């Protein structure tokens, strides 16, 4: 893990990168990293996120600045900008059931090719996908998701990069921290090693590439 400035971390992300962003309706989202993506005008991004948040918050900021070309998410209903950009064919939106989305990311981070899920069977979600029968039950083959970068927000990070989260701000963060080539983290608090007890570390330090240092 290297401690870097927010400018330096975001400068590593090229235009057109695939980026996972932690958070759920903007809760547990690394807002400083998104603000810097907007400031550096990184464009044509492929974003993987649970939802599109709302304008002015979380990944919503990236849509306010028209920086996204593809969004993979489970819900966009509370961000009218995304709906508009989707209808105008400016953003391609892949809607994925939330449980399938998180399992595809988990598979990507765990070296699996995908997962078999009953969710989506008999709905339009099954279109174009392989159906596999196991013990007489039908499942959809949902393939793994990985990304170039994961932008993660933790409650505590220690000097090594061990992470712990707070309450409902955990959500997709620890799963995404497994599934990207480069993991960039902001934390509410940076603390000495040992403050997070071994039992309470959720994301182990070796997964973290960059921790944004206090300014």
């Amino acid at each position, binding site marked *: 893990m290297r401690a870097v400035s927010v400018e330096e971390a975001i400068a590593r992300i090229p235009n057109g990168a695939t980026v996972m962003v932690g958070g759920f309706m903007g809760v547990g989202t690394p807002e400083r990293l998104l603000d810097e993506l907007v400031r550096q005008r990184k464009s044509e991004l492929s974003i993987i996120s649970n939802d599109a948040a709302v304008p002015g918050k979380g990944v919503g900021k990236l849509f306010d600045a028209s920086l996204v070309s593809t969004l993979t998410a489970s819900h966009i209903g509370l961000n009218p900008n995304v709906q508009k950009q989707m209808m105008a064919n400016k953003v391609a939106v892949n809607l994925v059931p*939330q449980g399938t989305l*998180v399992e595809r990311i988990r598979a990507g981070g765990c070296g699996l090719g995908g997962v078999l899920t009953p969710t989506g069977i008999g709905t339009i979600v099954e279109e174009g996908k392989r159906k596999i029968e196991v013990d007489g039950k039908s499942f959809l083959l949902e393939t793994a998701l990985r990304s170039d970068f994961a932008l993660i927000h933790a409650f505590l990070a220690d000097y090594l990069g061990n992470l712990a989260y707070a*309450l409902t701000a955990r959500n997709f963060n620890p*799963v995404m921290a497994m599934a990207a080539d480069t993991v960039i983290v902001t934390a509410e608090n940076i603390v000495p090693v040992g403050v997070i007890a071994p039992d309470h570390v959720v994301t182990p330090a070796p997964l973290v590439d960059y921790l944004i240092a206090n300014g």
Partner: protein
Amino acid sequence: MDAQSIIARRVARELRAGNLVNLGIGIPTLVANFVPSDLKVFFQSENGLIGTGPMPEQGMAHPHLTDAGGRPISALPGACVFDSAMSFGLIRGGHVDITVLGGLQVDAEGHLANWMIPGKMVPGMGGAMDLVTGAKRVIVAMQHAAKGKSKIVQKCALPLTSSRPVDLVVTDMAVIGFTAGRITLLETAPGVTVAEVMAVTEADLFIPANVPEMKI
């Protein structure tokens, strides 16, 4: 009593001590207001919490503690938190006893459509498909009709949420079940007649000899 309170009160009567319950947004959220205080029920919020409590007092909201809509909530003593993989493992894995969801249409086979209106509204399915597929019991809480049009239809015209049929539908006019695979009128709302329910129900409802009034 207003339509939403009738629905929420009636759904609340389905909850049993020890149940793990997931409430969707809209009318389902109101169900928590009508659970007797001595009934110990675990409420799950799909964004990663079991033990959701009411909105915190003014000035006590924590930015890292919200419901699935991003609104501030509190956590009850004994609450626990987990990531989204665990949250949907609980949901898909059959660990949730009851899920209560809103609906756009429910049909005679119990199929639910509740996540998009093609060409008009594409919010996304969020967690709904996993909930309907995986929960032990699925209850739909919705208005019986929208702008005079029945939401209880013979066959869903809107895209389905799951191929798994729901177990119970509670509306402002009736309780509908699927006894022996047949769409059946189980109860009518206070002051509502069977004929009035039939008049605003498109699906071919089976009417038992005795249809009691909802107790709410």
